[in-house]
């Protein structure tokens, strides 16, 4: 049976921890391995193991990912985290949100307080309350020491094997083993420590959201928005379980968040995410980002240019005329932007309208005399001139 919606998308355990659990599950019964005394300093060694895995995994994430940096958004996320954090802070934990430029829908946390969120996931959220629930779920994993608890609950033999293997071998194969084990053997599901911890993180997270005075029902809309991309729709079970925990009193205390404010915070991220989606050819997602950006900021020049680009490159019926509309709106909003001039020129050039294209290419060159694509624009100008001269002869 597949993991619940959010377990796959936004609320999974840190990879290093998953690796440790996987080894417990997969190697625990496989043989004696390298054994040392199970009773000697087990707790200390587990803490050491988690600390080692946390550093190793985060180093690997930074190495293989592109971080999305936007100080104002980061400050906003930190404020939401501060709002959610319980007073009894866990020692050695310093919550910090790190954004990864990635269209995937994923978020995960580490025992040291680091919470990694993909821009593709953040771009799916539609209110601060949803964001709060996402962050609260991850904070619950951290503050409840889920990683340590799960490891401590595993068989001692496995711990020793994990410990010894982790320090010497690459664990890159382990997440796949975890997945295979959980998917292949449904009997594990009811007793899966991972599942149980996810459920606890859901409950504790929702409680944190309520205590921070967010409206829980608004927060739970996250399941609706993330389910768009989940074919199985399994998040409904999780949503139902959380709704059961709410009382009528809950709806009276929460405040609805201002979605316009949230959209403003996401403005740059939506633009960048739209560009990212366009680059990989996910037209629908790219369009969703650009349209959402423009819905809240109708005069966003680069947003109109982006929407024009998506439509021009997708090139379905009626796309190109629509693209032209958005290029002209981009120019209206910011006449100094060279890109829409070039794009309009390209559309005219493709239609064989060299005289019309010429002026737009000239504008693009004049507005950005040192742009990296100027050699291309000059080649288009030459093409226009040759065509026009041919027409005049």
């Amino acid at each position, binding site marked *: 049976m597949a993991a619940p919606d959010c377990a796959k998308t936004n609320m999974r355990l840190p990879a290093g921890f998953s690796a440790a659990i996987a080894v417990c599950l997969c190697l625990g019964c496989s043989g004696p391995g390298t054994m040392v005394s199970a009773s000697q300093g087990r707790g200390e060694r587990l803490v050491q193991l988690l600390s080692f895995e946390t550093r190793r995994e985060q180093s690997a994430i930074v190495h293989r990912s592109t971080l999305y940096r936007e100080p104002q958004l980061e400050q906003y996320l930190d404020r939401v985290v501060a709002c959610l954090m319980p007073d009894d802070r866990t020692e050695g934990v310093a919550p910090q949100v790190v954004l990864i430029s990635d269209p995937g829908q994923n978020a995960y946390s580490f025992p040291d307080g680091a919470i990694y969120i993909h821009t593709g996931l953040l771009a799916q959220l539609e209110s601060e309350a949803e964001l709060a629930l996402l962050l609260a779920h991850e904070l619950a994993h951290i503050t409840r020491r889920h990683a340590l608890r799960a490891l401590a609950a595993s068989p001692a033999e496995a711990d020793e094997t994990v410990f010894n293997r982790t320090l010497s071998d690459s664990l890159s194969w382990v997440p796949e083993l975890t997945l295979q084990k959980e998917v292949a053997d449904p009997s594990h599901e009811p007793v899966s420590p991972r599942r149980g911890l996810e459920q606890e993180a859901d409950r504790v997270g929702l409680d944190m959201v309520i205590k921070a005075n967010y409206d829980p029902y608004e927060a739970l809309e996250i399941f609706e928005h993330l389910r768009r991309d989940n074919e199985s729709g399994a998040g409904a079970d999780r949503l139902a379980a959380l709704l059961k925990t709410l009382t009528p009193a809950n709806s009276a205390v929460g405040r609805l968040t201002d979605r316009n404010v949230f959209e403003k915070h996401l403005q740059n991220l939506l633009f960048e995410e739209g560009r990212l989606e366009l*680059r*990989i050819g996910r037209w629908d997602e790219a369009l969703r980002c650009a349209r959402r950006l423009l819905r809240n900021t109708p005069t966003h020049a680069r947003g109109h240019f982006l929407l024009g680009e998506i439509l021009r490159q997708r090139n379905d019926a009626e796309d190109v005329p629509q693209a032209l509309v958005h290029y002209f709106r981009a120019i209206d909003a910011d006449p100094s932007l060279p890109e829409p001039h070039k794009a309009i020129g390209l559309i005219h050039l493709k239609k064989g309208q060299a005289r019309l294209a010429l002026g737009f290419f000239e504008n693009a060159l004049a507005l950005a005399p040192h742009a990296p694509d100027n*050699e291309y624009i000059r080649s288009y100008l030459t093409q226009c001139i040759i065509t026009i001269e041919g027409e005049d002869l």
Partner: protein
Amino acid sequence: MKPRFWICIILLALLASCAHGGGKPALTFNAAVPEGWREIPTDDAMMFMTKEGGYKQFVLIRERPLSEPFQFTKKTMQPGMLPEAAAEIVVNEILADSNVRNFSVTENRPARIAGNSGFRLAFIYTDADGFVFKTLYYGFIKGDTFYNIRYGATEEEYFQKDLKTFEKVFESFNLVAAK
């Protein structure tokens, strides 16, 4: 340790050719193999040549039908597409390949390739094994086919050393009737 990126390309090419059960498709281009270099036989519509091994320096010339979507972005090129748009598709495809890290385009400009309007890209990337590669990539569309000519080498050791040789290969490239 071999760079996985090129291993994958070659294996995919070999698998693809096995899948349709035929031999090497007829090529519609020709290029001279430089003295001291050797052509590595493949069953795909490409020429792959190297002097000291494909992972030190190589020249790869390939033709692919426009109808064939790119592997990662699923984008396709269109007949008559402008060179800049074709270059963008190539760049996006490489960006979408998770085996490629630190990809950086250092040059993207129009170019003439055997009398055809095309593009020239220069880029640097790190493969999954940590090797830093520098690549020159020429491409153009002719009819229903996208042709590309690549020269790649591990940046420090080999790129400059064999650049002149690549230029000779590039100059020798020409389109022919299917052979």
